[in-house]
């Protein structure tokens, strides 16, 4: 039982490593949120599944999902908690995008952990010592 638990833990850790290998952000990265659509505000989602559904859904279906999202202004600071590469697919994306779990650091939703699209995340360069 102990060996099985250890094997599962090692496998999970390996998978998580592979999944986040080429992600837009890594745990602990400081980022700002900024959308590349016409409206630079960013929708942050309560689950990565809804994030994926939103980008694959029809307009009406997407509209029905809006209560599960909050809108944060462009430039909102956050920290990357986790990242799942190539998780979000959409008919209009040429390649799948990442789902990035972030901890919001500013604004009314400060302290919340939510999911955003990889292309809405901009890394903040740490100042050199």
């Amino acid at each position, binding site marked *: 039982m102990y060996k099985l638990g250890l094997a599962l833990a090692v496998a999970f850790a390996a998978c998580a490593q592979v999944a986040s290998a080429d992600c837009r952000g890594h745990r602990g990265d400081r980022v700002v949120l900024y*959308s590349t*659509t*016409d409206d630079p505000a960013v929708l942050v989602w309560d689950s990565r599944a809804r994030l994926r559904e939103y980008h694959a859904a029809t307009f009406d279906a997407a509209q029905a999902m*809006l209560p599960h*999202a909050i809108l944060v202004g462009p430039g909102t600071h956050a920290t990357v908690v986790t990242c799942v590469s190539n998780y979000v697919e959409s008919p*209009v994306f040429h390649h799948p995008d990442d789902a990035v779990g972030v901890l919001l650091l500013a604004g009314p939703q400060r302290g919340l952990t939510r999911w955003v699209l990889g292309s809405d995340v901009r890394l903040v360069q740490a100042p050199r010592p």
Partner: protein
Amino acid sequence: MKNEPFANITGTLLMTAFLIVTLAFAVEGTFETRTQLANTFAREAQIQQAQMQLEELLRLQIDEENSLRGYLLTRDPFYVAQYRQAVAGYDNTQRAIKRVLRDEQLLAARDQLHQYGLLQSKWRTEVAGPLLRHPRRRLVELDKRNKLFADYETRAVAAIRETLAGTDAAFVRSTQSQVNRAAYVRAFWVLVFGLLAVLFNVYRSRLNRELEEERTITEILQRAFRSESIPLPHCEVGSAYRSATNHVAVGGDVFDVYRLSGTHALILIADISGKGVDAAVLTAFIKFMIRSIALRESDPAAILAEFNTAFSKAVGNPYLFVSMFVGVLDTASFRLEFGSAGHDAVFLRRRNGVEQLAVTGPVLGVMEEPFYSETIDLDPGDTLVLTTDGLTEVRNREGKPLSGTGAMELIERGPVHAQPLADDLVAAARSRGGTRLRDDLAVLTIRLMDAQRVDV
């Protein structure tokens, strides 16, 4: 042999026709390609125009949103006017793009544009309208909806952009393909044209070779058939010949001076209907047959009659006939006995003028008619000028023939001596008829000399 010239002309005409048809196909193909390319370029230009209009549409959509934001921030009615202007611009541009997509039958892009238009219209109703009416009531849910519209409109524009870019790329590929095809087709026609030109050249070379062979043969025949200048006692003989056949120096005219005895000479000139090598071959028949008859018969009428019978039986062609003058000249007494079978181009130049010798019977090879002989006494200094109708019928530029009278005038003022006179008559005929004669021309001149001044 008779059909060869016709076959040669037909072959040349066919080859030329092939070349012209090939050239016509090549030219037609070029014009068709040009039309196709022009059409493709026009359609490609339409698509590119639609692509630019789509970017303009996107700019107008952002103008609408920015105007709305400006109004919400400042409450300045200027932004409302700007918003309405952007709305009108958006709708006009959208209609223009729809027309292009309809013309180009890009149904998928047209549907996407329609969806895009519906989203924008819905945004105006659900987002812009409430905010314009109640600018203070800016709700979070409204902002989220605005974001939703922005996301989906971005998707719609991306889809349309992709469709148009795909179509544009397809046109580029099509243009490239047309250009390639045009190049291949042109190369093909150039190849065909070149091959035909080579074949044409080979064909012409073959014709030229055949003509050269024919020329060689006829030159041999010419040497064999034509009479050399046979000296006659107390006479000066001249002759000239010009064939109507451009490349062959023999034809259907024949003349002969043949010594039958020490004092008597046969004088012959004849004109066979027809020209060229066929007629030339007959001249040999005539010349040697008349000689052989004349060795037995001294009466020109009898010679003509016997020849007429033999000729009709030997040739058997009802369309072939011969005009002939046969004379037997006594070079001692200067008495000339002659018979003329329809040959009226024989003249006698005397001190007091030129006279035309009479025709004494019909042409040979047509009917069995009696022939008659006449006798005239000549004087020293008289010149017999025997020609064929190539002289009397030579036409000037106005188409008027020289006629017997004109020939007599030429002979009267021509050179005294026999050979210069013959040459002069041929030159006069060429001068009158142009460089190319329409009929063969033979001239035989015999000038009677004083007995003491002639070497025999």
